[in-house]
């Protein structure tokens, strides 16, 4: 107890020292802030920064550099991902006053269907409410003629602009430090000087290379491959085939970590993730009976309307902050294999809070943003342990796969708190809880006693 108190006092003392030391950098009235990238991390950072500045009466000029137009269909207007807005992010955005309208959410989801080598089982959202959103990051897949939908990224960018951000539709070609300040160069050698820069370019551009000569301690994230395809099925077929269910696949395909089928409006998106995924393995997965059984009769895996192979973070960036600079979203630290949009929200919020209430020097950013980033990165380490355990003991073994399905099915009539396996799987897929919490629940003797019971049943009864 005494130690905890002294630690608290040490924190307070260190925070006070940092806040009052003369060299602490802070944003003054009229300061200029730039954001590179108008995806969710950049837009949310801009939105929260202006919101928090307004609360304390600080006037800022904020420019968001985003060359893409999110109202375009196909790759030119798209940030390339499965487009799932997690349960926890939808709730937190609503509390922050950002409610996603039906024009942005293609389809609200009320359940997940888990597929493994032994079969499938359904998991419902709490209270049978549609709490997970399927969205398009751009206006829709290639070839869509009339889009009634608004892009998720475009919606968030509009919110930042409504809050007072200035949108500059230019690509940044150069970054320099001059007298401590940040200078950005755009096409035509136009130079703009800023007090602070947030980098939210993602990892699927070459923009992060601009920072390698500039920030010695920053190292970009290590990446994993994904494959994303959109299939046109028509609204009625999507409704009758999928309803409001996202399908998740944990199959024993080499290089595959997991795959998802996400229904949206007239389309279904297939997204596949894995450290050692290749085109050939991706095609193998599409031909698996588990995948084919979810799609309508006559579905041809080759008849897709749009596809991409974006990279996602497998590890976070090293030291994603420096004096007057922070790296957000996929450019910095994201959550392993889940809830990338939720991770962008967390990083944006942590960075804006640090900038407004702590300062813009490296030590100031460390105190709030650095801690939040490390918390996310440490949680990812536990996530990797969980995925390794799943790879070793659940994916390839019929007994554990059958026991998992049996246990989930039997838990559906039980009240929350007694659904051991269901809640673990739900939280791994949705990102509703940190991997740390999931791991602790996996160590609980009650979980193990039930799992062993169902493994015993699965050994006796194979069907």
């Amino acid at each position: 107890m005494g130690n905890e108190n002294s630690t608290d006092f040490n924190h307070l003392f260190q925070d006070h020292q940092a806040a009052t030391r003369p060299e602490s950098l802070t944003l003054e009235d009229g300061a200029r802030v730039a954001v590179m990238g108008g995806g969710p991390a950049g837009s949310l950072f801009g939105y929260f920064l202006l919101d928090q500045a307004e609360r304390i009466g600080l006037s800022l000029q904020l420019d968001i550099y985003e060359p893409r137009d999110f109202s375009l269909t196909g790759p030119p207007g798209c940030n390339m991902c499965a487009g799932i807005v997690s349960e926890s992010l939808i709730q937190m955005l609503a509390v922050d006053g950002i409610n996603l309208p039906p024009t942005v959410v293609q389809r609200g989801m009320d359940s997940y269907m888990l597929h493994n080598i032994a079969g499938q089982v359904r998991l419902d959202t709490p209270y049978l409410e549609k709490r997970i959103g399927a969205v398009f990051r751009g206006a829709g897949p290639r070839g869509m003629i009339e889009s009634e939908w608004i892009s998720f990224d475009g919606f968030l960018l509009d919110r930042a602009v409504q809050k007072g951000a200035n949108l500059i539709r230019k690509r940044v070609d150069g970054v320099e430090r001059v007298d401590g300040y940040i200078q950005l160069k755009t096409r035509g050698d136009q130079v703009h000087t800023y007090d602070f820069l947030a980098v939210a370019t993602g990892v699927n551009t070459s923009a992060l290379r601009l920072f390698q000569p500039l920030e010695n301690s920053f190292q970009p994230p290590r990446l994993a491959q994904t494959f994303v395809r959109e299939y046109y099925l028509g609204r009625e077929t999507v409704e009758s085939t999928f309803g409001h269910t996202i399908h998740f696949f944990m199959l024993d395909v080499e290089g595959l970590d997991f795959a998802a089928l996400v229904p949206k409006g007239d389309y279904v998106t297939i997204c596949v993730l894995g450290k050692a995924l290749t085109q050939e393995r991706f095609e193998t997965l599409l031909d698996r009976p588990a995948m084919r059984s979810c799609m309508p009769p006559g579905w041809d895996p080759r008849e897709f309307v749009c596809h991409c192979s974006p990279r996602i973070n497998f590890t976070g960036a090293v030291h994603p902050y420096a004096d007057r600079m922070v790296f957000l979203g996929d450019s910095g630290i994201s959550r392993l294999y889940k809830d990338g949009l939720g991770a962008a929200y967390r990083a944006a919020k942590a960075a804006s809070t640090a900038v407004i209430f702590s300062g813009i020097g490296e030590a100031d950013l460390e105190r709030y943003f650095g801690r939040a980033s490390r918390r996310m990165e440490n949680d990812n380490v536990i996530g990797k342990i969980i995925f390794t355990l799943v790879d070793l003991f659940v994916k390839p073994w019929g007994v554990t796969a059958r026991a998992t399905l049996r246990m989930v099915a039997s838990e559906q009539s039980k009240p929350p708190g007694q659904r051991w396996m269901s809640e673990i799987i739900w939280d791994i897929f949705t990102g509703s809880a940190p991997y740390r919490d999931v791991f602790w629940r996996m160590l609980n003797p009650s979980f193990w006693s039930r799992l062993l019971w169902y493994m015993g049943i699965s050994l006796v009864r194979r069907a």
Partner: protein
Amino acid sequence: MDNNALGRIYTAGEVIFRQGELGDRMYVIQEGKVEIVLEQGGKEIVIAVRAPGDFFGEMALFEREVRMATARALGPARLLSVDQKNLLRRVHEDPSLAVRIIQAMSQRIRNLSGEVARLENWLVELGMSQHRESKG
């Protein structure tokens, strides 16, 4: 209302939660309106009407008390619920998340203070007029 949209759709007059129930979540209105009704002595008193973007039921997140009023959909309404456990965990990591809830609660205290002052004034005036009548 769009059945594909987020949240759950409540029909006109459908009860969202009842006075006296234990609560473990609050609600954010996505579409429609909700009335908050106090049941007292067999009578119903509408104490507030909430509109899109508003939240209600937030007292259950911070107190271990039963619901102090009933919430009922005033026409079709689409609501998103926010779990106590999720929200409090996030508030622990990011205290700024609670600011909008505090702002709304502060606004409601301000409105209630105005109501109390208005009622007190009305009671004083009522008492004075009764006093004058009894004297007259």
